[in-house]
């Protein structure tokens, strides 16, 4: 017999994370989703929310203190609290911008991986990354910082998903693929084996990519073709 019981193939990343007190940066829809998941399915305890001055509106969010981002380090110092940035990446790259602010303030950022994810033990997942239930992360997959992976998505062996990507629900990324920085992969899209999606691309839902893409273009259709729309004008 092998060590199948003591060292299972799939690691429950979230259950092995150290946990601690967590501040969610953001107070909108994304923050609500993150709050729910971190509370019910992670070792972290959410203690507060934080937002920039223009997005405050109230002193409380979901019964917890809502602190101006500028004052966060005073109230919840980085050495004792971890952060999770839950903000949309469109239209203003808010998620990346807030992540940079939080990192330069000295915070470590938490990642969330649903306990219903299949993740092989040698998978690497960066900071401030969020992986929904039923995703499959195969042998040697590497996922960067600030990435969102939707429910039911498969990322094939040795594939790389770079920082700041959004990968929607039930996306199929084949083995050996590379997804560049800041890409958006719409629900149900599909990337053929060993294909590279260049930095800053948008794949509309259901797009099937059979060969390498050029950077900063919108693709749609099966097989994928570049769309006339500019990436900046593409709601996501």
């Amino acid at each position: 017999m092998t060590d199948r019981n003591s060292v299972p193939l799939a690691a429950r990343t979230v259950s092995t994370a150290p946990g601690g007190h967590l501040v969610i940066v953001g107070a909108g829809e994304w923050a609500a989703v993150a709050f729910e998941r971190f509370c019910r399915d992670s070792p972290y305890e959410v203690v507060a929310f934080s937002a920039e001055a223009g997005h405050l509106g109230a002193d409380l969010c979901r019964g917890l203190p809502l602190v101006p981002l500028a004052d966060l380090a005073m109230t919840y110092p980085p050495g004792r609290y971890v952060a999770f940035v839950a903000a949309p990446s469109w239209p203003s790259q808010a998620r990346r911008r807030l992540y940079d602010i939080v990192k330069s303030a000295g915070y470590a950022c938490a990642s969330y991986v649903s306990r219903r994810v299949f993740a092989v033990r040698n998978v690497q997942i960066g900071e401030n990354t969020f992986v929904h239930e039923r995703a499959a992360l195969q042998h040697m997959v590497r996922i960067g910082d600030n990435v969102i992976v939707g429910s039911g998505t498969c990322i094939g062996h040795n594939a790389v998903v770079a920082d700041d990507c959004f990968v929607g629900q039930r996306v199929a990324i084949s083995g050996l693929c590379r997804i560049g920085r800041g890409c958006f992969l719409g629900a149900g899209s599909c990337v053929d084996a060993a294909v590279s999606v260049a930095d800053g691309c948008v794949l509309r839902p259901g797009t099937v990519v059979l060969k390498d893409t050029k950077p900063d273009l919108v693709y749609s259709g099966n097989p994928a073709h570049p769309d006339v729309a500019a990436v900046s004008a593409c709601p996501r």
Partner: protein
Amino acid sequence: MGKRLIARHPLQAQPGGERIIIVGTGETAAVAFEYFRRDSPHEVVAFSAEEPFVTHRTHCGLPVVPLEELASVYPAAEHGVFVAVAFTQLNRVRRRLYHAVKAAGFDCVSYASSHAVIWPDVKIGENSFVQEHVVVQHGALAGANVFLGSGTCLGYRSVVEDDCYLGAHVTVGDRCRVGRASFLSTGSCIAEGQSVAEDCIIGAGAVILKDTAAREVYLGNPARPVGRDSFETFGVTGG
């Protein structure tokens, strides 16, 4: 542990394991090694490859033995084999090596992930590999030497013949037939009741709405033959 709603397939509940040798030393073999090691009752003891392809003495920390000498080093009566090769030459290399190890007297083992849902009455042949999140419904049949990638679904009473390779997120509808040695790439879909003939290549995301012809390459939605020979496309030598 919560109560399972669906009984386990016999492949997922094997009582005792075997000592096995993985034939292949590429990326697919490294992936198979992880799955067997962590999620099967079997113990991988060595790798093997045909003499000209033995480039290193070890792979993943285990010895690599030339295939020609395998039975003399690891007796066939005491060892199982898994041939871990992808769809090279339209599954011809995997098929050839599978027959070579069978001829040397070995039995081949199959693997089914503990994270797959496989109806207990499903028949799966030797040397097949079923990854996580695969769903195989009631009455479906998979032959020998078949690979089913992550999240793939075989509808009820569907048949996947020997030597086929189905990538991730492939959907095979109810009562479909997938002919011998065909390759269905990532995210492709076979509408229910349709047949894919032998030796077809179905491109990534292609949607098959009617029966296909043998040895053709299909792309797009709805899928169309692109007029290329599948043997030529995948460099099959020797048929």
